[in-house]
């Protein structure tokens, strides 16, 4: 195996292991986008809240680190529902001329607020939740910390559970129906406005899960969600807005693009390759790879 290839593989493997956790986050964005037709610019901050929740639960309260991920999801789900009820209801009260732009501005402002409100609460020092496991595993091309590997597997599991739930459960079918056609879903008796908090809560809980999973590896601090959010956005565009399949494929593609970028360009720009990819994909296909407005 040539040096270049083994380098590429090691970048790729380590990138994909983290990438699918961002994919989980992108899946959350997708659900919010599908049901509410908005992009949540504060998604990264829910990731951050998830990380802090996992920290409090695993370190301060001494709850099992794996259980803490569920705790983080639950806490952030509730916060998400509160945020949706408190701030986003004007979106579908039919009182705004430009609900899409309202949502962008609102979630943008929310992200500034959340990022700064945690400073007085948790202090400026970074935190880490309890590791999921000790030690590293040799994957042949690269060594990977066990915590990361477990986090990655858990995120795949969560994605699978979510996809199955969307496919099989009454709530899942209702959410997909709303995403496909809001009016038609309403006429099926689905209370579409009641589903918004559910979708927002589930979507933000996915971000929280990602935050909790990465907290032991990447630490938690007020601005820790920004990179995660930008990756989730890139995955969302890559995969095509609102396609759940796309979120997963997008995460893998981003991993590949980043590895290629690091290898042939420079590692310094690694976090920017996602943006370049957004631009390229949109120039070629303005609706994303799996583009459609529905999600299923």
């Amino acid at each position, binding site marked *: 195996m040539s040096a270049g290839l083994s380098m590429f593989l090691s970048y790729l493997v380590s990138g994909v292991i983290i990438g699918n956790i961002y994919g989980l986050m992108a899946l959350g964005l997708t659900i919010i986008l599908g049901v509410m037709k908005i992009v949540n610019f504060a998604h990264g901050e829910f990731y951050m809240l998830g990380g802090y929740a996992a920290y409090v639960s695993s370190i301060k309260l001494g709850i099992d680190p794996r259980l803490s991920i569920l705790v983080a999801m639950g806490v952030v789900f509730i916060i998400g529902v509160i945020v949706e009820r408190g701030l986003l209801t004007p979106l579908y009260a*039919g009182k705004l001329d430009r609900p899409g732009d309202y949502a962008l501005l609102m979630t943008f402002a929310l992200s500034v607020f959340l990022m700064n409100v945690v400073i007085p609460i948790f202090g400026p020092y970074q935190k880490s939740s309890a590791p999921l496991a000790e030690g590293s595993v040799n994957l042949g091309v690269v060594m990977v910390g066990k915590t990361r590997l477990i986090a990655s597997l858990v995120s795949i599991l969560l994605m699978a559970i979510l996809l199955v739930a969307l496919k099989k459960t*009454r709530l899942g*079918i*209702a959410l*997909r*129906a709303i995403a*496909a*056609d809001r*009016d*038609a*879903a*309403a*006429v*099926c*008796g*689905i*209370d*579409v*406005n*009641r589903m918004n908090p559910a979708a927002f809560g589930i979507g933000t809980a996915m971000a929280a899960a990602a935050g909790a999973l990465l907290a032991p590896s990447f630490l938690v601090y007020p601005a820790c969600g920004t990179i995660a959010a930008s990756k989730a956005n890139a995955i969302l565009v890559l995969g095509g807005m609102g396609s759940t399949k796309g979120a997963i494929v997008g995460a893998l593609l981003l991993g590949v693009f980043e590895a290629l970028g690091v290898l042939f360009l420079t590692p310094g720009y690694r976090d920017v390759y996602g943006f370049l990819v957004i631009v390229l994909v949109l120039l070629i296909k303005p609706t994303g790879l799996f583009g*459609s407005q*529905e*999600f*299923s």
Partner: protein
Amino acid sequence: MLVLSDVEASYGDLRALNGVSLRVEKGEIFALLGANGAGKSTTLRCIVGLMKVRGGTIEFEGRRIENQTTSTIVKSGIGLVFEGRHVFPELTVLENLLAGAYLVKEARAVEQRTQELFEQFPRLAERKSQQAGSLSGGEQQMLAIARALIAKPTLLLMDEPSMGLAPKVVDEVFRVVVDLNQKGTTVLLVEQNARRALEVAHHASVLESGQVVLTGTPAELLQNRAVQTAYLGM
């Protein structure tokens, strides 16, 4: 069964309904006729609560339902088949039906009703795990009707069910409507194809610029000179 009195509605500053009054009796097929933009679809949207009623009242089985949430209205027994069908394209046929059965909480009842509908519409049974978006226009129309029926509505609102369909399929759709009605479902039918609608209807109204200008039995309407020129091309 359904009584609209002086219903008003608007899109932004644009008035769409200027006091619509209708009376649909239990067990009948009631046809609502009118040109494009006369306010037929708007009337239906007001009835199911997809649009805000700015004036007047809507009564269903003696209870006021205007401006209630759509899900409450649907729960009280009204179903709607949209113009242009509006099936969920990326959901399978079965999932479309399951979405339609959202209000039916027991899994067994849902299964039973799905079976009944598959018997009634065998074409859908054949395609039950296909994506709804891949069905033909006629099949989508059948699916849209089936999806509305699975919740067993007592009043079914149908918006232009014949639009964009081949004549043969249109026949089939009307056969289904009559069949339904004979089994006891009241139907409020909005149609541009006035001749076909009047063939099956018991009563009908004509809507013009957001107001009812004429109401009567099909026979009476067919006699009307204005109806003849405007809607029947005579």
